[in-house]
């Protein structure tokens, strides 16, 4: 032990397979911890994970059905609300879960295999699982009652759902990392998420809008995702307008920025 010279000790890095296994284990541990913390073991416990979004979706479906909201297509309002609101829950709750997620969890970083990215990803996976199960169960329930049909192209629904989830995760990671830097992120995200809701494609079909409005609304990436989901679900009688390339490009760039941001904040983090 001495103040020795700077002879760098090069060690073969951990094999990628091992590292992946470790990361998977860590994320799973964080996920279980998060789920247990959030829902506890009381009453229905874990089930809240998807019961909560289900209640939201059912509520909105009921509201829209009662008020007979104009949505500009021949799709039954229940099916319309189901696809629309589930999609909103998917991408909008993710940033909410990640913003300011780090501060209360900083001591976890004492366990060296727990990285900032893992803390975010565990929450995102939980959110994804909840929104997906809610959508799945409600779709099955509504189909049994006869309010909706089964999706015409299940693969397309899944594809759209995953793209939307990717977009939501990238956005969440980016905002989550950014929120370490500035509390403005949290302050601005709340109004922003409410303002984007009516524009997000949940409450209308793009086809029902006039041309100028379509061009404007299609600037929002999530609209493309919702349209893909709807086209897959309702098939030909919902004329969808979307550009897969656009939402993928946006999600990709967001992912890139998010990962950069996570790397950038790492040195600034002070564990109490």
């Amino acid at each position, binding site marked *: *032990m*001495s*103040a*020795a010279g*700077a002879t*760098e*000790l090069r*060690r073969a890095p951990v094999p990628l397979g091992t590292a992946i296994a*470790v990361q998977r*284990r*860590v994320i*799973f*541990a964080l996920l*279980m*911890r998060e789920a*247990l*913390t959030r829902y*506890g073991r009381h009453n229905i416990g874990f089930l809240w994970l998807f019961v909560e979004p289900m209640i939201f979706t059912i509520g909105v479906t009921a509201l829209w059905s009662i008020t007979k909201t104009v949505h500009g297509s021949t799709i039954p309002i229940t099916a319309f609300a189901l696809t629309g609101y589930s999609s909103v829950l998917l991408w909008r709750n993710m940033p909410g879960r990640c913003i300011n997620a780090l501060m209360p969890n900083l*001591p*976890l*970083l*004492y*366990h*060296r*295999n*727990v990285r900032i990215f893992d803390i975010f990803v565990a929450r995102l996976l939980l959110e994804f699982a909840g929104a997906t199960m809610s959508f799945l169960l409600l779709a099955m329930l509504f189909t049994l009652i006869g309010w909706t049909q089964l999706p015409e192209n299940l693969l397309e629904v899944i594809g759209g759902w995953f793209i939307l989830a990717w977009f939501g995760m990238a956005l969440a990671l980016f905002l989550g990392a950014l929120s370490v830097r500035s509390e403005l992120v949290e302050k601005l995200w709340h109004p922003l998420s409410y303002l984007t809701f009516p524009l997000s494609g949940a409450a209308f079909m793009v086809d029902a809008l006039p041309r100028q409005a379509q061009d404007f609304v299609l600037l929002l990436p999530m609209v493309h995702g919702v349209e893909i989901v709807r086209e897959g679900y309702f098939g030909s009688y919902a004329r969808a307008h979307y550009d897969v390339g656009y939402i993928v490009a946006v999600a990709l760039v967001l992912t890139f920025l998010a990962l950069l941001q996570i790397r950038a904040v*790492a*040195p600034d*983090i*002070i*564990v*109490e």
Partner: protein
Amino acid sequence: MIRVRNLTKTYPVRDGRRTILDSISFDLARGQKLGILGRNGAGKSTLIRIISGAERPDSGSVDRGMSVSWPLAFGGAFQTALTGRDNVRFISRIYNSDFERNIAAVDEFAELGAYLHEPVRTYSSGMRARLAFAISMIIEFDCFLIDEISAVGDARFAQKCQLELFEKRRDRAMIIVSHDAAYVRDHCDHFAVLHDGQMHFHDDFEPAYALFKDLIGWSPPPDTAPETAPETGPQTASIPAIQTTA
């Protein structure tokens, strides 16, 4: 072997950045026990956090050739809404360790009884400390990081900790950070004083302690500088005792 090279860390303060660690380098071989003395706020805990990997240095590197623990007896990672058992399960998952064996060990060592199945927020501070120490002992490391550990529970439990850490794991490397000179002296074989971002290394306790006293001596008297009062008080009191035993 742990290699620390040119470690520099600054924190942002109101007028610019304050340098806490200024280009620190050292090696720690297996089984070596390094005691680091320093005043409050000298950067001891920062150093521990950087070595543990919880924080990133501004520059420089920490090369861990052996497994390094999280700062011992550290209880901050408890999710207080979860039970002690859930926290043990979490740690077991993170470190890929056998949960059944671990929960048995924690149950025996921490003596929490039925409280193990209650949320940690219902624990007393002593119980939390016991749980934290017990959890720290279930994962085996080559090197333990110990940050001001002295106050863990009652005397009997302190003794158990002593046995568990310094007797059963006497072959492990340790980095002990403290302003309690006696504690460092009793458990370490290498010493360093951290002051103004610099580490002063000594193979023997006496010169290190002399330097430490020197540095403390330069600080304002206890009655005019209240923030240094708590640490200088007990230490100056323990100086004669140390000198007689040394």
